[in-house]
């Protein structure tokens, strides 16, 4: 039995089912409210939901049972008296110490919890970056969406923000530096690219068994880093992808040469190319990509898959892959993408998919 947490424009849906079959809705929470992201911390068993009420602002709620009561976490706020307010929360990621979690949000902010996610504190080192007044948002806001920990080493972190690029820390988040070398923002004139940090990263993942390797989906570009995010290699040009634009990205923890992306046509046409829904897989670190679409809609299907809407469970040939679209469809694979089935349909627009 697999449990999926599906954040949607109209609440959180917990789905349960077996691979190959349709999943059933086992719980719905935050009815009517946008849920940007939801996950379960396997260490504690706690569920987390990032909820952005259109009326009452962004919050994180926590529970041990998604069909039961949820409790609001404390401390997810910016310093009073400043001219900024927290707009949205995009991600929750377990850290590399007991009880440590990170949360990322808009406007480009990082929070830390050391008590398993009930209370949070703003990461001051990142908040006080001197260049912050010059930062600008992407179309989805200035979202800190990707937080890549380093297995076994809590001092090393990588963050990605749309549209403020990659940030690296070697001291547990006390100090930060850019990690943008090699990224090419085609949406900026060539003569203005060299010194810009207006870099619209859409997704970033570190490989757990070879942590100096990261994969990135960029706003027009797919990249790999082999030096812990210091520099980036183009793996999206002439490598078999129908487009290098897209949002989500997943890796196989068993294989440091693996990554999965879901290309969309382009930034001005954010739908699946040719009316066909396809996932693309690399097993050679991005030298080539292969289409994985057996069982996915192959005709008149113009779907949009958002950055947090692609999740995974397990690894290797039996790895489960699940993604949702703004059409309200959720698709799954129980064989690492070789074949696909429809897990759910007619949900509200899907913001995020994670395996509980």
């Amino acid at each position, binding site marked *: 039995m697999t449990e999926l947490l599906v954040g949607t424009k109209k609440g959180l849906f917990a789905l349960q089912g077996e691979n190959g079959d349709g999943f059933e809705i086992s719980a719905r929470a935050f009815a009517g409210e946008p849920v940007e992201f939801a996950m379960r911390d396997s260490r504690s068993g706690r569920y987390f939901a990032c909820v952005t009420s259109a009326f009452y602002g962004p919050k994180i709620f926590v529970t041990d049972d998604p069909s039961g009561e949820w409790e609001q976490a404390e401390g997810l*706020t910016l310093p009073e008296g400043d001219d900024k307010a927290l707009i949205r929360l995009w991600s929750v990621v377990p850290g590399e110490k007991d009880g440590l979690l990170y949360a990322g949000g808009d406007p480009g902010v990082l929070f830390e919890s050391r008590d398993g996610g009930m209370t949070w504190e703003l990461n001051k080192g990142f908040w006080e970056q001197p260049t912050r007044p010059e930062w600008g948002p992407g179309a989805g806001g200035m979202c800190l969406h990707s937080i890549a920990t380093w297995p076994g080493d809590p001092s090393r972190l990588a963050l990605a923000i749309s549209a403020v690029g990659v940030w690296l820390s070697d001291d547990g988040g006390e100090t930060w530096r850019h990690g943008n070398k090699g990224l090419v923002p085609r949406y900026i004139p060539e003569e203005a690219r060299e010194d810009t940090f207006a870099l619209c990263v859409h997704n970033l993942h570190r490989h757990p068994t070879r942590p100096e390797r990261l994969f990135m989906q960029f706003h027009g570009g797919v990249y790999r880093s082999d030096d812990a995010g210091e520099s980036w290699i183009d793996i999206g040009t002439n490598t078999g992808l129908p487009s290098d634009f897209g949002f989500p990205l997943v890796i196989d923890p068993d294989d440091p040469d693996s990554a999965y992306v879901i290309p969309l046509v382009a930034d001005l046409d954010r739908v699946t190319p040719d009316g066909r829904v396809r996932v693309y897989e690399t097993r050679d670190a991005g030298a080539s990509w292969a289409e994985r679409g057996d069982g996915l809609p192959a005709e008149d299907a113009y779907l949009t898959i958002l950055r947090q809407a692609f999740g995974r469970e397990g690894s290797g040939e039996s790895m489960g892959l699940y993604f949702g679209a703004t059409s309200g469809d959720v698709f799954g694979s129980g064989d690492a993408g070789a074949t696909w089935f429809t897990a759910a349909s007619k949900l509200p627009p899907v913001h995020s998919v994670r395996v509980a």
Partner: protein
Amino acid sequence: MAVVRLRAPLSELAGGKRELRLEGSTVRDVLRALEHEHPSIAGWILDERTTIRQHVNIFVNGERGREDTALAPDDRIHVLPSISGG
């Protein structure tokens, strides 16, 4: 003291109270007093800038109010979600 009327979910965060009497000379003062009395409601009506959230409407004696709207004793403040949405 002003009279503050709340609806769910705000009333639930105020211990189930739909009506509270609170001190303050402006709407902001009264909402801060509400947060002080019921910390769970902090961040729901006023944001970090002590600005009323964009899609929350405040009515003072039936007329739209803002953070700095001055209050007289026994003024009635309604806190309501706006009719925006999608």
